Structure formats: structure tokens, C-alpha cells
């Protein structure tokens, strides 16, 4: 049963093909995280400081992205862009949907980071003569960053793993490229294990770093 693990027709060529897929996964992740974080910071700060009549609708809209399966979001967005006649590649659609998806989660992380800074601390800063802007950059931002960064790292890794769903709209990323090879050489367990290993190697070190940061910063509290 395990003999196929030792006499495999998996070639160096196939490994290169999968690593190329892994490259696509990383590119998708990069754009999604960049877009998602920028949007998330903006929306998060807005949600933290705006009155309820801005806050509530914005929150409700972002909540939609967190309540519908990513797969469905991708399919709907992909067919919608056709209907309205936007010419985007599946890769671009994947990046945009993932970025919006990430921004919905990132907003909450940023907001709770922002709100985690005690008002008393901020008042103290102001009464020490810091301006409003200084209060934001010197007091709120560093404290909020410490609260938010570990969750942000977790979110980034989550988005990296969620890029696997983009194959549905026709992007050949890591999981899809391993399926292509399974189709040819018929060794699902072996090829999938390699795919799993690559995902693990991309995710695990960063996850560890996040856990370490979280622990170290907690000690300093």
C-alpha cells in the first residue's frame, strides 16, 4: 500500500510545477493582505471614532463578507464582473475578493486594538501637552499595535490558507497544481502530502513568530 511512496513517478519537473503554484499562492496572499490591511485600518479607525450612524451601516456591510462562504463570494464576484463587463483576470478577481474579505476581519482587529487603549491614558497624554496627532501616533498607535499584531498575523495566515479556494474561478495555485499532477500520475496521497507540507512550511514559522510576539508582549504588560 505504501509502495507508491517509494517508487513514485513524481519528477523534479512536477515539484517545480507545484512550487510555481506556491508562488501564485504567495502573490495572492501578498496583494490580499496589502489591500485588506489598508482598507481594514481605515475602516477600523472609522468604526472606532465615528458616531453610530456611520458605524452601524459600515459594520453591517463588512459583516456580510464574514457571513458568506468565501467560495460563494468568489463565484458571485466572478460572474458579476462579467455581467457588468469589467475585464479582470481570475487572479485579479481573487485578489480583490480576498482583500475585501480580509478587510472585514481586519477592521474588527484594528477597532478593538484602538479601543483597547484606555481613555485615561489618552487624557494623561493630552494633559502632558501632547497634541491630538501626537496622542494618536505616540500613544494610541504603539499600544494598539501590540494588541492587534498577533491577531493580524493569525488573520494573514488564515487568508493564505483561504487562497486555496481561488482555484474554483480558474487560478492555478498550489492546491490546484497538485491536483493537476494527481490527475497525471495517480498518486493522490503522496502528491497531496507534498502540497500539505508546502502549506505547512509557509504557515508554521510565521504562526510561531506570532505566538512568540504575543507571549513576549504580554509579559511586558
Amino acid at each position, binding site marked *: 500500500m505504501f509502495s507508491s511512496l517509494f517508487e513514485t513517478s513524481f519528477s523534479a519537473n512536477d515539484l517545480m510545477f507545484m512550487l510555481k503554484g506556491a508562488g501564485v499562492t504567495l502573490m495572492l496572499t501578498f496583494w490580499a493582505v496589502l*489591500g485588506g490591511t489598508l482598507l481594514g485600518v481605515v475602516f477600523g479607525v472609522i468604526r472606532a471614532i465615528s458616531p453610530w450612524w456611520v458605524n452601524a451601516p459600515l459594520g453591517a456591510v463588512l459583516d456580510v463578507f464574514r457571513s458568506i462562504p468565501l467560495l460563494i463570494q468568489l463565484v458571485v464576484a466572478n*460572474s458579476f464582473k*462579467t455581467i457588468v463587463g469589467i475585464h479582470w483576470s481570475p487572479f485579479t478577481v481573487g485578489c480583490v475578493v480576498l482583500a475585501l474579505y480580509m478587510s472585514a476581519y481586519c477592521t474588527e482587529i484594528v477597532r478593538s486594538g484602538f479601543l483597547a487603549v484606555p481613555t485615561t491614558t489618552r487624557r494623561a497624554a493630552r494633559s502632558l501637552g501632547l497634541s491630538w496627532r501626537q496622542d494618536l501616533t505616540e500613544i494610541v498607535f504603539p499600544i494598539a499595535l501590540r494588541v492587534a499584531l498577533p491577531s493580524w498575523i493569525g488573520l494573514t495566515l488564515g487568508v493564505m490558507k483561504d487562497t486555496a479556494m481561488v482555484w474554483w474561478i*480558474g487560478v492555478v495555485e498550489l492546491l490546484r497544481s497538485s*491536483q493537476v499532477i*494527481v490527475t497525471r500520475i495517480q498518486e493522490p496521497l503522496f502528491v497531496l502530502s507534498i502540497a500539505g507540507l508546502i502549506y505547512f512550511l509557509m504557515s508554521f514559522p510565521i504562526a510561531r513568530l506570532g505566538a512568540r510576539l504575543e507571549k513576549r508582549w504580554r509579559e511586558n504588560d
Partner: protein
Amino acid sequence: MAKGFGILAAAALTLAAVLPAQADKLDDIIASGTLRCAVVLDFPPMGSRDANNEPIGFDVDYCNDLAKALGVKAEVVETPFPDRIPALVSGRVDVGVASTSDTLERAKTAGFTIPYFAFKMVVLTKDGLGIKDYDSLKGKKTGSVSGTFEALALEKDVKAWGTGSFRGYQTQADVFLALSQGQIEATVVTSTVAAAIVKEGKYKGLMMGGDAPYDIDYVALIALRNEQGLLNYLNLFVNQQVRTGRYKALYDKWIGLGEAPDLTVPGVYR
């Protein structure tokens, strides 16, 4: 946020603006210099990949011929079966050279040419299960690729028998994988594919289990429904392939057994 507003604005503008008359798709293909074909690549001998993971097969050659006729470069875009028409409608490809059965339901969404190939359906099973013909599928675990001609026919029969089960998969490869692993006991596929799969011997123990009593499955090229200019060109192209003997040559190259199937139905036009 600028990006978010940008997208919204773009969407709103596109919705609101009265679009100018678009250039014809045929013109677009010639002007862009590339013909993007949707091809299914887990469906040998029509489409598969060689040792370098490059696409090969009857449909791949057919796409190359079409590109040559148009004087452009061919680009093969891999699409699993259920993704063929979405890929076409979403503008990811220009033409589908993907063994697409010309059902009336699909013709509501996509435009079909005259048939460029025809399949006969056979039962594919594993030895030792006692499946010898179509009738012995009754009560067995069956499966096929969601939404294909043979899947619709098989699922209908399984429902009518009231025993056994049917599973729809998203790719042809997953169906063969499920069959060879024993997740399902039989599937119905085109005879050409069954022959190629059994001959290849990659999946151990697979064997043919007799003909399936379905109509002949005529498959056509697909393009956008409203692109009459392109569809007209494609019809003539299919006709020319047969007339020049290229159709037979491709058949001999990729399938080889017996005669190339007749692409006309007696007693009716087209």
C-alpha cells in the same frame, strides 16, 4: 478606501453608462493576436497533460488548427467540465473546444456550433464487481462529472430505479480516482475516454462494462450566444476540418480505433 470607492464607482459607471457598440468578438480575437480556448485536460485522449505538464490531445490540436486558420496564437486555458461555460461567459476564454454536449438547456446561455465530434457512452467499472452491462448498474454506487450529458442521463436512471446512488464530481479526474479507490463502483463515460484510460493502465483494475443505451452525444464548439459572427466562422471551420480530411487525421492520431464518427443526423438539416 480609495480602492473600495474606485470599485464601486467603476461598477456604478459601467451599469449606468450606455456602452458604445462593441467590436465584434471575431475582430477582437484577430486584433489581440491570441485565441484563448477552454479545454478540459483530464479527459484523454481529447485533452490531457504530458510529462512536462504541457497540454496535449485532440481538443488541443483542434484549438491550434483554429488559431492557425485565424492567423493568431493559441492559448489553452484549462477548465474542468462544470467550469467551461462560466469561463466562456466570464470572458476568460474566447472559444470552448471542450467536448461540450449541445443541450437545449445550455443553449439558453451559450452559443453552439455544428457538432465537431460525437461520442458513444460506455460503462466503466472495476473488475470483480460483477458489472457486465448497463442494467447491472441498478443498486450500485455510481458517479460522474456534475452537469455533463452522461451525468444527467445516469442520474435520471438512478432516480428512476430508486436504488443505488449517484455522486457528481467537479472534475473527470476525481471520478476516475473515486472509481479506482472504490468510492463509487461504476461510471458512464465516452467510449474514447474509457478506451484511453483502460489502455493507459494508470488506474489498476478498471474495465469496460458494455455500452450505455443513451443517444449519441454530439459535442460542439461553444462561443458567446450573441457572437453570431464568430459562431458563423466556427461553423465553417468545423465543416472545413471534415472536408479537408484534417478531422480524420486527428481522429487517427488520438483515438485510432475504427472510423471517425459521423457528425450528421440523417433526416434533418444541420
